[in-house]
């Protein structure tokens, strides 16, 4: 039973990171029916910028408690600018092009971002260790401060995003644009600007997710956005792409499935497969959803689109 709860905690932590990234996919899809496959790489950029800035600031003697939030703000600014630029330069000219064009552009962009990152940060693994050795032991279940930080911050950001989309005038314009862009323009909404803002918001969340990933795993690399992006995309599809609540539940659920799968696969298969097969679960989930329930858990009618 301890394994179960331990993996549940691990899964929720991981899942809340997936959820943050999945929100970026689902917001962009909700508003312009585009799958921005370069979004995963935004997490990588956020992670590596945070990592470098923290090292630089630490080198200058800035205490970690200050260096970390400053680095995160810096990474968010970089990602927001990059997200804005990508929409402006790569996607906006393709607004009226056939669906395949922006999709191929997204894949190309993803490669460009990775290669530029490889030039800037090299191809090796960069380490990132936070000096937190304390752990809480709750009846055999180990919880680290990083895990609670990740979960807490994710929940706070998700709540903030829901509030923004549901209660603010920008959120109202986002939902109006998603439902009928032409009429939104007739009502005076600069829909291009709303779309820009959507990219910027998603990119900011990706930057935070980037910090969480390096803090949780302790390493970063220019390819780290690929698998994470695929999993977050899976989470978005699982929840019903276009639905905000769906992305959140999809992310958490996927994290838990993956962690439980990794925790038990050894026992179930008599040691044939180890926890290194955990990535398989995400894709089994993706295939299963696409075959049996393609609209996702909260997709279609019920889901609240952006």
């Amino acid at each position, binding site marked *: 039973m301890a394994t179960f709860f331990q993996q549940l905690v691990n899964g929720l932590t991981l899942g809340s990171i997936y959820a943050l990234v999945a929100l970026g996919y689902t917001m962009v899809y909700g508003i312009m029916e585009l799958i921005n496959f370069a979004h995963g790489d935004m997490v990588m950029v956020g992670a590596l910028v945070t990592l470098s800035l923290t090292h630089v600031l630490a080198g200058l003697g800035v205490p970690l408690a200050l260096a970390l939030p400053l680095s995160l703000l810096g990474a968010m600014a970089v990602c927001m600018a990059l997200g804005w630029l990508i929409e402006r330069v790569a996607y906006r000219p393709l607004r009226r092009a056939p669906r395949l064009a922006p999709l191929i552009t997204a894949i190309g962009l993803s490669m460009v971002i990775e290669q530029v990152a490889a030039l800037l940060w090299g191809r090796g693994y960069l380490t990132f260790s936070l000096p937190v050795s304390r752990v809480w032991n709750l009846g055999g279940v180990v919880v680290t401060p990083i895990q609670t930080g990740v979960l807490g911050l994710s929940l706070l950001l998700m709540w903030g995003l829901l509030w923004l989309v549901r209660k603010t*005038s920008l959120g*109202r*314009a986002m*939902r*109006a644009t998603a*439902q*009928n862009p*032409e*009429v*939104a*323009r*007739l*009502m*005076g*909404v*600069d*829909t291009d600007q709303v779309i820009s803002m959507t990219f910027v918001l998603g990119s900011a969340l990706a930057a935070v997710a980037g910090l969480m990933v390096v803090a949780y795993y302790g390493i970063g690399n220019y390819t780290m956005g690929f698998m994470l992006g695929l999993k977050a995309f899976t989470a978005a599809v699982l929840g019903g792409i276009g639905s905000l609540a769906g992305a959140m539940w999809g992310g958490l659920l996927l994290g838990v499935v993956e962690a439980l799968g990794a925790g038990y696969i050894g026992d179930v298969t008599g040691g044939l497969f180890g926890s290194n097969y955990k990535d398989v679960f995400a894709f089994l989930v993706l295939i299963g959803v696409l075959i049996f329930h393609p609209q996702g858990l909260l997709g279609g009618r019920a889901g*609240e*689109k952006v």
Partner: protein
Amino acid sequence: MTILLDIAGLSVCYGGIKAVAEVDLVVHEGERVALIGANGAGKSSTLKAVAGLMVPSSGQLLYDGTPLERLAVWQRVGAGLCLVPEGRGVFPRLSIEENLLMGAWHRRRDAGVLSDMERIYGLFERLKERRLQPAGTLSGGEQQLLALGRALMSRPRLLLLDEPSMGLAPLMVEKVFDVIRAIAGSGVTLLLVEQNARLALELCDRAYVMESGKVVLTGKADECLRDARVQEAYLGGDQS
């Protein structure tokens, strides 16, 4: 009377097909102008060009003396030009209240928005009762009233209405037209596209009749009502 909207030699094309061909049309400040014609005559395309949803292939559009091409679609509402599109175009998953607020988007920081909303709720009791429900749950007629209310929230100077009676039961049509009459009475200039020619001609001061993209007749609305060709083609022929 000053000219508020001046359309000169307007043509609109879809691919190679010319939907509007060299149309001249003028709307004076404070006037109510009807644009009538059969299905596919090019009425909606004309309005879309004025609102900016279609780019004219030729011609000149002047609004209050300035060329409209300088304004993006979303900037035209701020200038006082508001289109209620064919099929009403309410946001189905926004609440009624949020739909009304969308109409006031360009003046969202204006303190007058809330009092305008109360005024509109005064006109449409039904909308107030259901203000927190999604607009998609309203009946077609109620959605049309909401679309009109939403347009009013923008404080328009020139209101373009595209077939407000479309698909509505006779009783509802009457109600919608009462509202349109009240809007016109409050000093808003009106360009009204309708298939229901009799209703439109009875409400308006002047009219244009379109056929296959061209204006074939124009004049005072009551004269059009008595015109033999109009009666033949749009009023069922037998009433005179």
